[in-house]
């Protein structure tokens, strides 16, 4: 449950669920997020502009001309979140091509991790992942946890442009760049699958917090021929 509620500036509520990152804390965050989303939809709560769930925090930004911190804090403290047992989370399979033209950082990874490219990929593909959150740029999923043997820091100097579709790893997480963007994660491959459809106004992001993600490897030929 929420460990502490404080204010972030004068127009956001900062709900702290703990300092660790794990699925059970994150599931808690998402339960609150879903509950509040429903209350907003049913117009049972006023003035909220945005909800941002992350690994272990939920930030609720609001319109200060319609409500304020103490009113919302009281509401949130009294919410009884029903644990979502029948989760409607999806299982999603993402193809990745790890050809050296897409996997940009294998040399660095091999040097630091003391593992061959094949060993790194074996650790990476041998697991189902959990989506903790989406954001930073539209639809970008942050998934985890990757095997301890392939955990690595961010690049010292971030890239100015990471190609769209790139799969990056850092610490216990992996992410997918849904747009070309600056970024400092270690790039191991690229997916031809479209993860964010800006013209789909109802449901633009393929991967959502709570979803289970598995990756599978494709060849460059399959990548180039890929058709959804």
């Amino acid at each position, binding site marked *: 449950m929420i460990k502490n509620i404080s204010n972030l500036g004068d127009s956001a509520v900062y709900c702290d669920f703990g300092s660790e990152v794990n699925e059970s804390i994150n599931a808690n965050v998402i339960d609150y997020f879903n509950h509040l989303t429903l209350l907003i939809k049913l117009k049972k709560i006023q003035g909220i502009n*945005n909800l941002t769930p*992350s690994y272990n925090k939920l930030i609720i*930004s609001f319109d*200060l*001309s319609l409500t304020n911190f103490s009113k919302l804090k009281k509401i949130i403290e009294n919410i009884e979140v029903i644990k979502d047992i029948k989760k409607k989370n999806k299982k999603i399979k993402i193809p990745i091509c790890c050809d050296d033209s897409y996997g940009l950082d294998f040399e660095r990874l091999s040097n630091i991790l003391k593992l061959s490219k094949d060993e790194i990929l074996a650790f990476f593909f041998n697991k189902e992942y959990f989506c903790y959150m989406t*954001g930073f740029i*539209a*639809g970008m999923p942050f998934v985890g946890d990757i095997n301890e043997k392939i955990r690595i820091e961010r690049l010292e100097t971030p890239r100015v442009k990471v190609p769209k579709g790139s799969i990056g790893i850092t610490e216990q997480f992996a992410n997918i760049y849904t747009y070309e963007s600056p970024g400092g994660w270690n790039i191991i491959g690229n997916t031809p699958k479209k993860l964010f459809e800006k013209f789909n106004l109802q449901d633009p992001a393929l991967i959502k917090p709570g979803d289970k993600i598995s990756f599978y490897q494709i060849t460059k030929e399959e990548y180039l021929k890929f058709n959804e």
Partner: protein
Amino acid sequence: MNNTYFEILRPGVNTTVQDTGRNHLYHIGITVSGAIDQKNYKLSNYLVSNELNEAVIEFAYQGPLLKLKNGQINFAITGDIIFNIIRNNLSVEEGNCYQSYILDDGDQIDIISTKKTTYGYLSVSGGFKLEEVWGSYSINTKAQIGPNNGKKYSINEKIFVKKNHIENIKDKKVNYSNPFNGIIRVIKGTNFDYFSKESKNIFFTETYSVTRLVDRMGMRLDGPNLENIINTNIKSEGLIRGVIQVPADGKPIILLSDHGTIGGYPKIAVVISADLDKVAQLVPGSKVNFKEVNLEEAEKLFKDYSIETNKYFNEYS
């Protein structure tokens, strides 16, 4: 069908359309966007008798050169802006901000530059004919979302207006200046205690300056280093407009309307809502000092800001 439009003869540096912004999408990574200075944006709508949330053209530094085709409109410009109206007989009138004008078929508006503000607004009576995307007409160039395929305007493009006739507005005017006394009022951030005692003191006593690294996403400041004694990264979490982050280099960054929705740099402070408009308008080289206020004071200052803003709309209506 109304076929009145502006032809863009020169696009300017960063010309987009903006409104109050786009909400309920942070959780999928889509930021709020919207006019970076909400007060000047609303004033521009007021001056042409629009609803205050009608979309307007926002420009930065050098604005666009626009030619009106197939109609007559009222328009107004807000901000601290130098602009001319070039009539279709080629006579040139110097324009004043915070005043409405009539533009005839073939007339041009030449927005030459901004002075003491970075951004300015151009409104037209009746508003622009635009495609709504996710509840807003704001252009987010980063995610390429919004009208004009989410891109800033370029030369020879057309921006259509809804009305082709003028309203009886009669040279509406407001007295408004863009004062900035160099003080940015803030509330301590959730990671305030990540910084050394000396750095906390420096943050509230030393002067910082606005660098050239300013855009709609954020504003980098230069000044004494802020020393982080705990961790220069936090687990990524949600952000809002006005958050002041301090990355490993020790220099603060103020987040503005197009900020990333989550981030992993410690938050030393958050700009109060009442000061967001004037912070966004700071030009590179401006000197600023941070002053701490508590939540109650910030809420009171926002009330004052709202009363002050609304007075322009009430006294003339």
